[in-house]
Structure formats: C-alpha cells, structure tokens
C-alpha cells in the first residue's frame, strides 16, 4: 500500500521540532548585538587602514600593479565560444556499449583563441574567473549543443556554497563538493582520489525550464552544471583523474542492491561514453543510472558528465535527466560540444 508523503514529512518535521534545543530569545538578542559589534569593528579597522596608508605612503589606486604580494587575477574580456556540435555516429543511452573518440585537434579549436590576458597566479578556488564558465546555451541539450533537444536552461541560484562571482560558488569542503547539484555524477558514491591534494571546488548550476525540457516521452532534462576541482599540483590532479573510471565502476556496484530503507532492489549502471587525449587535455565522459524495480515513477535518474583534466585542474560539465527511460536520448552527442567548450574555457588558467 502506498504511503502518504505529506504525513510522513509532517511527522518527521514535528519530531525534529519537538527535539530541538531552544537557547532562547535572550541568546538570539545577544548574538544579534555581537553581529552588530563585529560589523562595526570591521568597518573601523578598514577605515584605520585607509587612513594609515593615506598618511604614510600616499594613496595607491585600486587595481594597480605596484602594490601587493600577489599578481592580480584578471578575468578574460569577452572570450567568445562557438559551440559547434560534431556529427558523429555516437551511440546513445545509458545502456550503450562504450564509445571512444580518436584524438583529434579539431575539437579543441572550436571557437577559442589564446587568451589576450592570461592568469599568472596559481588557480585559486576562492577567485572567480568569468572566462572559465560555460553559459546556459553551452550546456548539454541546449539548442546549439546537439543531442536533438532545445532546452533553455535557467540559472539556478542560492546554491550550497560561498558565491565567488557571477553564479559560481565555492564548495564548503570536499564532502560538499561530492554532493553538489550534479557533483561528480555519482549518486551515493565518493571519489577517494579527490580528497588528496584537493584545495577547493567551484561550481554553478542550471535548472530546466517549465516547458521544452522533454527529451522523449518520459525523460526530462532537469539540471545541468559545471564545476572545477582545484588541486595543489598537476600530479595531484592526475592521481584524482585516474580514480574516476575506477570510482564509476565501483559506484555501479555499490548503487546496486537492496535499499535498506525501502526494501526495494536498486540497480546501478555506468557507461563511459567517450574518452580522449588532446594536447594538454584529458577527457572522459560517463553516464550513470540508478533505478528501482517496479518504480511507478519511471526508470530513475540518469546523469551524464564529462570530465576534463588540465594541469592542476579537473573540470566537469554534466546533465541530470529525470524519469529516465532513455530510448532515443543521445547523451554522447549532447555532451560532445560542452566537453569541447569546457576545454576551451578552462585553458584561461595558464598551466
């Protein structure tokens, strides 16, 4: 017999509410006054610093190259990326046999020129670089990126992280990075190699529109996004890179089995849809599917993610499809252009 979601949700919320510790309104007032005090201290300190600089050394214009111990990070000025979908005979769907793409140089030259102002500083997960981020129109299944769909992705704001610029957020920690809106496209799996030498993660996200996100009779393009893992060194990035395929394979196994909470059989399935080595870039693209038997809601969710390794960075771009009966959905075609665009943009970081 089907259970009632609203009742169970209400019970859970009310149990939590009943169990909650109540520090009391006085504590809230004290905390509020502390916030005000800290703000005033911060403003006063900044004012004192400006006065000190002004009286001893003369004012230094913001953005000049004369001061500071760190070279300024300069976002690229209007780097254009033309997403040119490649027509290939790629197989489609999560159940296809893995396809590999022979290395070529054409894919990486699409729409990009050498940056007019490169970045001299080491890639910093706390610093926003506008030129490294794909727009909504470059996400999988967009009108210009192939895959036979025309999804008008919308920016998804209020993400779980610290906004660094635009709609890009920095993840709180490695655990958070693995559970992002798309994260690494692994449902409940971890990437053990990613914890070593990972100094930070940036990500953004897009959601599908109210209409026009249908990929076939049941599949809906739900979410898309991009991320960049920042490692301490190219070696650390390479170690992490080598764990991806093993992690996906292991994840398919761990995703399969009996859900201890629901008692239903779950099936995990992964497929590598492409891999390539082109100049300074390594790329690998995967899909993974998690579904339950006799699911009234359909076949579960499918995520397709392309990873790109570039120096000390591992970038990804991906899509999540709900109600994923994937007949006729060409993930390979949909991911090809975003992967190439990602290579173009991530190279804004000089490596």
């Amino acid at each position, binding site marked *: 017999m*089907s*259970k*009632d*979601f*609203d009742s*169970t*949700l*209400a019970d*859970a*919320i009310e*149990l*939590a*509410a*009943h*169990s*909650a510790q*109540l*520090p*009391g*309104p006085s*504590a*809230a*007032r004290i*905390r*509020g*006054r*502390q*916030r*005000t005090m800290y703000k005033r201290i911060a403003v006063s300190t900044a004012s004192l610093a400006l006065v000190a600089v002004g009286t001893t050394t003369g004012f230094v214009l913001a953005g000049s190259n004369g001061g500071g111990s760190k070279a300024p990070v300069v976002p690229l000025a209007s780097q254009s990326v033309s997403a040119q979908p490649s027509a290939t005979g790629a197989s489609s769907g999560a159940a296809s046999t893995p396809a590999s793409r022979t290395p070529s140089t054409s894919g990486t030259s699409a729409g990009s020129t050498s940056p007019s102002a490169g970045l001299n500083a080491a890639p910093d997960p706390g610093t926003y670089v506008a030129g490294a981020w794909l727009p909504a129109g470059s996400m999988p299944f967009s009108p210009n990126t192939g895959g036979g769909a025309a999804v008008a992705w*919308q920016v*998804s*704001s*209020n*993400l*779980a*992280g*610290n906004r660094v610029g635009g709609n890009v957020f920095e*993840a*709180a920690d490695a655990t*958070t990075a693995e*559970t992002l809106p798309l994260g690494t496209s692994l449902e409940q799996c971890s990437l053990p190699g990613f914890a070593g030498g990972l100094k930070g993660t940036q990500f953004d*996200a897009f*959601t*599908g529109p*109210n209409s026009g996100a249908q990929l076939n009779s049941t599949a*809906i393009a*739900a*979410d898309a996004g991009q991320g960049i893992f920042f490692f301490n060194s190219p070696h650390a990035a390479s170690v992490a890179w080598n764990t991806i395929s093993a992690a996906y394979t292991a994840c398919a196994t761990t995703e399969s089995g009996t859900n201890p*909470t*629901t008692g*239903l059989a779950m099936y995990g399935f992964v497929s590598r849809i492409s891999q390539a080595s082109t100049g300074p870039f390594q790329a690998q693209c995967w899909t993974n599917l*998690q*579904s*339950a038997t006799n*699911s*009234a*809601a*359909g076949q*579960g969710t499918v995520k397709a993610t392309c990873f790109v390794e570039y120096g000390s960075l591992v970038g990804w771009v991906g899509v999540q499809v*709900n109600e994923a009966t994937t007949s006729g959905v060409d993930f390979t075609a949909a991911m090809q252009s975003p992967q190439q665009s990602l290579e173009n943009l991530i190279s804004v970081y000089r490596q």
Partner: protein
Amino acid sequence: MGVDLDQDFDAFYAATHRRIIGQIYAMTGNLHEAEDCVQEAYARAWQRWSTLTTEHGNPEAWIRTVAARLAVSAWRKTVNRLRAHRNQSQDTEVPGMNPDHLAVVAALRRISADQRLAIVLHHYAGLSVEEISAETGANPSAVKARLARGRKALAPHLTEYADSLAAPGPARASRQAETS
C-alpha cells in the same frame, strides 16, 4: 519602548521557533545545523526587529527564508566563531524517527535546495504557489516547476510514496491543481 520590543520578540520567538527549526531540519537533515541556522536568523531578525514587524509584515517568513539560505550557504563556517550557544554534544539524532521518516528526510537531501524548500513550504507549511513566490522571490512559474520537478526527483528515492507524490490527496487537491 525597548522593553516592549523585547517582549514582542520573546513572544514571537516562543510561538515560532520550534516550527521553523522543524522546517529547516527538513532542508538540512541535521538537527544541530538547523538549530544553528535558525538561531542565527533570529539574531539577524533582532537587529532589525522594529522595521521587520512594521514594514515586512511577515517576520516568520523572513526568518525562515534567512535560515533556509544559511542552511545551504557554506559561508556559515565563518560564523562558527560567533556561536554563543553551541552544544558540546554533536549528537543530532532526532528521537522517535522511524525508517520512513529518515527515508523522506534523506530523499529531500537528494534534490536541489530550491526544490527542497518549495516542497517543504508547500507540502508541510501549506503555502500556496503565490505565497512561496512572495517568500522566496522566485516567480510563480519557477515555483511550479520546482514543485513538479522536486516531486519527480523524489519519486525514484521514495518509491513507496509514488502515488501520493504523483496524485493529490483530499486535503491538498486545490493546492496541487495550481502546480500541475
């Protein structure tokens, strides 16, 4: 005047605090985190209490929105220094939760924060699409999409609740019609 504000705030706190914590718990799956986010939201509300009650009109919605944003914001780690009431115990288990409760809370964690908030506001707090729109700042069509997609995203993880997620119950029929 100051005493009046204190008493007004105290009464409001007593009437709303537990309710909001429960809702934010559904957002985070962690009771301690929910307690902290909500307490921080009340602290911020206190800083602007007089204007909040006179100009905003719905302090509870304001606090819930702030707490929900804090719950998904990683900058909270810097607020750790300002926690004046943090418990020594890190135990966040909620007594009385059965596997069904845990499954629902865990499933909510698997959908986006926007969808999660819309689901909690609609399915638990009983807010209409327009009310959710006013509280979250998202336009009504975006709220409808979040609710529809949120339910569909939950369904694979809550297969035993598929019918109730897919079809409206008697008490929610009118609200469901808004989002279908």
